[in-house]
């Protein structure tokens, strides 16, 4: 086992890995940028190495800075976390060249599965269905329409070089396709400088269902069940849960076997996730391979809560050469887990927020786990991802887990910057969420009505608390009480018992 491990990341995932190291008796080495000099992960690790200025490009994205930090600190292994360099094959190979263990798959597997086209071919050859689609060689309107007809309507036309939903147009019949083709081509050229179009079957209201896989260096590959991540906004997940409300034992067995087959065909090692689109419900549902994420996922805690295992510990053990301690048949699911991501963003406009956490108190209650990278007094900057914390609720049933998540969010005060907690509270009570009737367009369809519920101003009880807070705030400069009030003779800290409004 490793004696010292460097975490090439920041925020909650760095904290998560540091905690796993501490349990396992491994010394942890944090890396930090200037903005993170006193951040939670920096202060929590056994050692910390500065790797550059605040800009991520010059710090957390600098392979040479990270390799230098690992060398100078005497680390034997590097955990990349998620985001930043976690799916960068150059970091993986630089680690190997420097004699460091990279806690993830081999560099060539990252490269292979990072190419959507190659990953799709590997999946198809391994027997996992993919969404039917092609980039027609002849890019004329007629050829694209013919390809669409062959694939079957409805179709999605999108830039071949694209991403992020830009230039994606729906087509519902051959006769009305030319306008969609022209518009998609125009947007593709404007955004990516390349008008080549890709045509694929449109899965109208799919669910996003992914399978956690683990593969050791001794030939064993297994899956740790599914996670449903259909609640997302602009491809950013907001709520994840396991099990999926539409999963049946037969469907789980089929999709799990497909995920394992893809991982095996790719020569996968360590923890990874195979993502699928799911159409329909129950045994007759159809699933399509989407992509493979060659790293630990943000939402890994829901799997840990239901399967009762520690995925970060498993990652470290696999990387040190140990065989997986479980067989597929030994893994079981118990109860239900829901994760809500707490972001530093305006709950209505979704704009990211920056500023100090003037007050930050994590709730503590049965069945609730908080993975966070901040503490009261932390300053949230614009340099990095706005994820503050992940609130994970477990219960014997989905309804118990949902109620626990709701109760915990209502007892999770964060003041000084706006967060999406008010939106999460409304979302968890939405009738469709309560029923588990989810698809990836949920927030597109329901987002406006959720936001409308948040647009009301402060109620009298809130104003009463605000008045009391002003009255008990010692610094007059902070804008306390107000004019025409004499409080010179009153020291609120000693004499205040109650405030009546």
């Amino acid at each position: 086992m490793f004696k010292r491990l460097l975490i090439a990341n920041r925020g909650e995932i760095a904290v998560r890995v540091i905690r796993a190291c501490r349990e396992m008796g491994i010394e942890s080495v944090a890396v930090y940028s200037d903005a993170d000099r006193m951040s939670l992960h920096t202060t929590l690790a056994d050692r910390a190495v500065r790797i550059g200025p605040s800009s991520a490009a010059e710090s957390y994205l600098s392979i040479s800075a990270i390799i230098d930090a690992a060398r100078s600190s005497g680390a034997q292994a590097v955990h990349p976390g998620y985001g930043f360099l976690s799916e960068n094959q150059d970091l993986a190979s630089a680690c190997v060249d420097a004699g460091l263990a990279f806690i993830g798959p081999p560099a060539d597997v990252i490269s292979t599965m990072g190419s959507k086209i190659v990953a799709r071919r590997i999946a198809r050859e391994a027997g996992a269905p993919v969404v039917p689609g092609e980039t027609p060689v002849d890019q004329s309107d007629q050829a694209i329409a013919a390809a669409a007809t062959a694939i079957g309507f409805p179709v999605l036309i999108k830039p071949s070089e694209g991403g992020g939903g830009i230039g994606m147009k729906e087509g519902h019949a051959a006769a009305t396709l030319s306008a969609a083709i022209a518009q998609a081509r125009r947007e593709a050229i404007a955004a990516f400088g390349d008008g080549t179009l890709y045509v694929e079957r449109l899965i109208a209201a799919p669910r996003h269902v992914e399978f956690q896989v683990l593969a050791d260096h001794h030939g064993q590959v297994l899956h740790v069940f599914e996670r449903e991540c259909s609640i997302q906004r602009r491809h950013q997940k907001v709520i994840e849960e396991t099990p999926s409300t539409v999963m049946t034992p037969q469907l789980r067995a089929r999709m799990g076997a497909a995920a394992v087959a893809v991982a095996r065909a790719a020569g996968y090692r360590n923890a990874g996730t195979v993502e699928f689109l799911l159409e329909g419900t129950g045994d007759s549902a159809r699933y399509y391979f989407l992509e493979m994420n060659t790293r630990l996922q943000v939402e890994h805690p829901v799997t840990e809560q239901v399967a009762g295992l520690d995925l970060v510990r498993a990652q470290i053990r696999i990387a040190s050469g140990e065989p997986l301690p479980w067989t597929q048949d030994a893994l079981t699911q118990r109860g239900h887990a829901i994760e809500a991501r707490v972001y530093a963003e305006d709950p209505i406009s979704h704009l990211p927020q920056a500023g100090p956490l003037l007050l930050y108190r994590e709730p503590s209650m049965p069945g609730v786990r908080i993975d966070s990278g901040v503490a009261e007094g932390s300053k949230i900057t614009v340099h990095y991802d706005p994820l503050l914390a992940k609130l994970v609720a477990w219960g014997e049933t989905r309804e118990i887990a949902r109620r626990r998540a709701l109760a915990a969010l209502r007892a999770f005060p964060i003041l000084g910057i706006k967060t999406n907690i008010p939106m999460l509270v409304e979302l968890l009570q939405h009738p469709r969420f309560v029923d588990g009737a989810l698809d990836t367009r949920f927030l597109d369809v329901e987002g406006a009505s959720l936001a409308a519920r948040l647009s009301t101003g402060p109620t009298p009880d809130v104003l009463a608390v605000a008045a009391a807070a002003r009255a008990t705030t010692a610094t007059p400069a902070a804008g306390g009480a107000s004019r025409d009030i004499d409080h010179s003779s009153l020291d609120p800290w000693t004499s205040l018992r109650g405030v009546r409004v």
Partner: protein
Amino acid sequence: MTSTTRAWIHGRLFGACVSESAGDRPFDVVPLGQGRFQLIDGGRRRTAFAVVAGDAWVFLDGRVFVVPTSGQTTRRVSADDATALMAPMPATVVSIHVAPGQRVDRDALLITLEAMKMELPIKAPRAGRVTSLACHAGELVQPGVRLLEIDYGT
């Protein structure tokens, strides 16, 4: 709408200007220290959290409110406001989807910004014609910086 709510503490008027009528329902608020407050509404007790930093920030039942010190509600930027075409926060211009002279419909995607790994679409508040661009792809823009100009005339 605007009225003054008065807080009584040991017979001394403390007072707070608020933006909406607080009605005549009495609340008892007991400071518990460290930003915690017991809110007693009739027989019902709840815990609230609040800090004052210029404005008063209040957390109650999963909602957060920023109560301005001045008693005025914060200015709401309307969709018609020309500031909608300014950068709302420090961000990087990822892509520009229009060119000067181009006519755009309402809600047309004009510019994509990125900040904190999130994409922020800048859309046309009304139909019009793009008269000039004031930013380029890859540029780091600051809040309030004009990104482009649109002529909303006929």
